[in-house]
């Protein structure tokens, strides 16, 4: 696949996704359910990634098929899953009824640190694999 084709494909896909998101926003407006927020976050990340791909690849380059597969499976899919997961966790955390105070703050900080360590461990393992 040539770089020009790759850029075109990424750009067109990004535009199509933006169009779909725009249409959904128009149809549902402010009535969008909460469960759609993680999906929305994942979609926004994918659009950003596709836009970055379409800009970063040089038109005169020859992009080999394994590289395209690696981008789809190793970059777009993890980003989408991580964004979905992160947004879901954030929504769930927001939904938990808590009383504001020092203990809650410390608990939140510990939870954030634990989340970071978890993500780092997963990333390390993924890199070694």
């Amino acid at each position, binding site marked *: 696949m040539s*770089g020009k084709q790759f850029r075109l494909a990424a750009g067109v896909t990004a535009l199509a996704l933006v169009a779909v998101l725009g249409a959904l926003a128009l149809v549902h407006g402010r009535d969008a359910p*909460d469960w759609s*927020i*993680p999906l*929305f*976050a*994942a979609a*926004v*990340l994918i659009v*950003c990634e596709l836009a*970055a791909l379409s800009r*970063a*690849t*040089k038109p*005169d*380059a*020859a*992009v*080999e098929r*394994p*590289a395209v*597969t*690696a*981008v789809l499976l*190793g*970059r777009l899919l*993890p*980003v989408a899953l*991580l*964004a*979905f*997961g*992160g*947004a*879901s*966790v*954030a*929504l769930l955390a*927001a*939904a938990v009824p808590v009383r504001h105070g020092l203990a809650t703050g410390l608990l939140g900080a510990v939870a954030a640190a634990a*989340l*970071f360590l978890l*993500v*780092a461990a*997963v*990333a*390390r393992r*993924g*890199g*070694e694999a």
Partner: protein
Amino acid sequence: MTFERRAVVWFVVASAGLLAGLATAQPALSAVAAGFLVPLLYGLASRPPRLPEATVRLSADRLIEGGRVELALTLAAVDACPWLDVELQLADRLVADGAPMRRVLALDAGETRTLEYSIECPRWGAFRVASIRLSACDRLHLRRAELSIEPATTLRVYPSVDRLRRLAGPRATRPATGSRPSAAAGEGIEFAELRFLAPGERARRVNWRATAARGRLLVTDRLPERSSDVVVFLDALGAAATNAESTLDRAVRAAASLTEAYLRRRDRVGLLRFGGDLEWIIPGSGTRQQYRIADALLESEVARTYRWRDTALIPRRILPPQSLIVALTPLLDWRVTRALLNLRRRGYEVSIVEVDPLPYLADAEAAAGPIAWRTWLLERDAVRTQLAAAGITLVSWRREQPIAAPVEALAATR
């Protein structure tokens, strides 16, 4: 290793979203921000990109112009490299054939891959073939590692050589064996004349057939084969050029052809390059000298300089007495004309092959206007007249002609 701009953008978006979510008490904003934050953390915590080990191999480091050289780039990945951008940047005078100059690959850990490029060398020169730029990204393309590789090998593309049958030779020869009949009679193969036997001469030189016909003792005089000294004068001070070719390109090819032809006749040949720096090669003979001159010719570039150039700078042993100087010049710089006139006044035989610059100056004619153009042409005619008056032989070498044409014309004038 550098961070991609996306990493910064994601961090800013995530921070702004979290702050906005807290400020407005909107969990949706914080959730979207977390959607940016988590991939960012994942990407930064993952293993940084590691470039594969790259080795470059050329199939040849010396070839004749018009030839082809194969470049093999071997990439050995220690770690997985999901996005490796390989860019081959060729030197100006080289043309790649077939394979794309830029490729995006994915290498698994431990994988070795060889990329092959076929490179055409249409013009002479000595240069680094290519610089290779490698750029690898981590899994989420948040960090980038880059490396530029310059192969240490210098590719030498020698100018093509035309076979020359007839050459202009100097009138004087040196007392060393060669292929050129000497002006003075002696022991040799070439017949010179018949003359009467002088007292004390050896009887084996008597030409008995002529003696029988004339009734008196006659001896045959022969011309010994001697060699001579030739210095090729290359004007690199100025050149007329188009995108495809320049007068210097042709002059260098002509210099290579002349050198090869004179050396084949066992003459001693030297080189004097009159450019930004005055450079020379002392006259010598043999194959080694041919390569020495060819290597020196490869370094020829047009050097525009306003420094004064004088032939007084040339050491005496560069220009042996009675040597023939064959100048290859487009006659575009008055300093070259002056130098050639000086050499002639010092007693050297000077012949000029004028590399016709007019086909390269089509745009200049339109830019300068007809009056200025005609004035310039008249000035060139005046220079030619001045050179001819000084006893310098000058022949013009047109673009469509082979080098043999002006060289034979030079030989015919002598």
